[in-house]
């Protein structure tokens, strides 16, 4: 027999209470994991951003475009090693629920600057050769069952009309955080169309992407760019790609904040539920703990018994919660995809989420133990031997 034997036997005294507590913890862990996964998905763009890219957009708003004429001037600036540009296309496939991001890009320079977008040389060549061609992400292709050669019809919103694009390649991301739900169409094809329908807005781009040689000089280059276009008709705002992505996250700051508060509240509830179970257990065993003292058990032994019990219950709950998270997250991701399209392409369960919830559970077990441990340490043995529980 060991102290572990005593811990496990003690747990079996009130099996229903221990089971309900563990199930409660499992439910909270499940909810916590889904919340953290959701918050992570919000930050996926930030995580995928690279430090050697700057985004140049109109100083007033992203919805106001910049002249294509800026391209050569940007390319010639000190520290800039590459320039590309893109527009948000905003087409609708079938209905509004079928959302996925579509960018009109300059193919060669975009693929040159975005090394994380991997296509075969044949696909790249096919895309470069066909103005109606497009590249789609692997995840997007899987979602709709598209393959190379398929024609994708889109209804234009920002660029009105019925559009059709031929899939010339399916890219995959080089990193786990890479977004594989994009559809990349050709800016020149889009611009050609706009010259016919809306010539005043032709020849403009939504934003520029600059590649810089030294990420440490990003601040200096950004100020140089904005300084160069100050007092022009289209002043710029330049920031790192990460800051640019954070801008989108900040738009949902209140929701993300609420989710974080909810996650903290859930853990606080877990802590209280576990603490309550442990306090009850210790109170019921007041006399037994005093008896152990008379046998020569020290405070450290009794603390071990309490913490051991807390860790076991919390560990059981966490393990169950994590096991349930895997299928639940799959259902959750499917549900979100069905309702919101590809607004959250990174709802995959990341191992770091499980590590986080395991760490949080460990902290909860230790914190929840402090109340009963304090009671144990303050106990008067002579008095407790007369305790009638």
């Amino acid at each position: 027999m060991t102290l572990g034997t005593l811990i496990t036997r003690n747990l079996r005294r009130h099996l229903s209470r221990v089971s309900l507590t563990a199930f409660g913890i499992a439910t909270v862990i499940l909810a916590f994991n889904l919340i953290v996964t959701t918050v992570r998905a919000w930050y996926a763009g930030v995580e995928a951003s690279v430090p050697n890219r700057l985004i140049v957009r109109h100083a007033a708003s992203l919805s106001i475009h910049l002249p294509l004429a800026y391209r050569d001037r940007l390319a010639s600036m000190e520290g800039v090693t590459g320039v590309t540009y893109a527009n948000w296309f905003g087409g609708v496939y079938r209905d509004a629920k079928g959302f996925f991001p579509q960018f009109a890009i300059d193919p060669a320079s975009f693929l040159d600057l975005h090394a994380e977008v991997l296509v075969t040389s044949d696909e790249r060549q096919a895309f470069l050769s066909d103005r109606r061609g497009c590249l789609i992400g692997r995840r997007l292709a899987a979602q709709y069952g598209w393959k190379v050669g398929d024609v994708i019809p889109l209804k234009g919103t920002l660029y009105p009309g019925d559009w059709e694009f031929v899939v010339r390649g399916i890219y995959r991301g080089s990193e786990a955080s890479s977004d594989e739900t994009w559809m990349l169409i050709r800016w020149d094809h889009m611009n050609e169309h706009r010259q016919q329908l809306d010539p005043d807005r032709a020849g403009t781009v939504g934003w520029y992407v600059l590649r810089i040689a030294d990420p440490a000089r990003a601040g200096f280059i950004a100020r140089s760019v904005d300084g160069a276009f100050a007092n022009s008709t289209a002043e710029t705002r330049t920031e790192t790609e990460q800051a640019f992505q954070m801008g989108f996250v900040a738009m949902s700051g209140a929701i993300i904040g609420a989710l974080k508060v909810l996650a903290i509240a859930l853990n606080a509830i877990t802590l209280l539920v576990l603490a309550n179970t442990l306090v009850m257990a210790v109170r019921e065993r007041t006399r037994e703990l005093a008896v152990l003292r008379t046998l020569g058990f020290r405070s450290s032994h009794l603390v071990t018994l309490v913490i051991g019990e807390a860790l076991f219950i919390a560990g059981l709950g966490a393990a169950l919660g994590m096991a349930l998270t895997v299928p639940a997250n799959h259902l959750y991701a499917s549900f979100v995809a069905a309702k919101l399209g590809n607004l959250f392409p990174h709802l995959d369960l990341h191992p770091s989420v499980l590590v986080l919830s395991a760490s949080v559970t460990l902290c909860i077990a230790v914190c929840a133990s402090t109340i009963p441990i304090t009671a144990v340490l303050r106990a008067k043995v002579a008095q407790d031997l007369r305790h009638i529980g």
Partner: protein
Amino acid sequence: MDQPAIEFRRVSKSYFRGEQEVPILHDFSLSVPAGTFLAIMGPSGSGKTTILNLIAGLDRPDRGSIHAAGLTVSTQRDADLARWRARHIGFVFQFYNLIPVLTAAENVELPLLLSKLAKRERSKHVQAALGLVGLGDRMQHYPRQLSGGQEQRVGIARAIVSDPTILLADEPTGNLDRDSAEAVMGLLTRLHQQLKKTILMVTHDPRAAGYAQDILHFDKGRGVTDDARHVDHA
């Protein structure tokens, strides 16, 4: 002269009930030689159990000093007292106080978990202790599967398994029928006579006290009558 197994030197102890101080022991001295079986009798609240708790270091005196099994108990730190208790003190309780989720053998093994004995050695000690109290065939029984007398014998086995210097018994027959009480007292007598254990037993039961070598009648914090031939008190 040999050093006494237990010695109280002018010990005083009070408790508080609310704000009222209730004196339990007043300037109490006691000297118990090693190998003595002493019964302490007296009315409820006279301080009998307090004496046992003070000897074991479960409570501390307000004044005076207590020495037991070679240690000045009243001045030790809690952790040191716990280690000392594990080696030198065996407790027998009125309500047995066995852990209900452990078998008889596991209950008896509990004090040995604090020793450095290997599992096999612990098992031998447990078998010997349970054999000594006549429960060698009840090792895997849980307390709920034993009679009161058997539970108390398991309690005694737990108290002696680590071969302590002093046995402290608090009303060991208080919850037993007559036959079981006689069996338990017979067992304590054997431990005293054969193993030369120093035993202090608190009891209300004159029949149980009759098994002891000496009896100290106790009231209002003092030994008031003296049938004790081997112990000194004041």
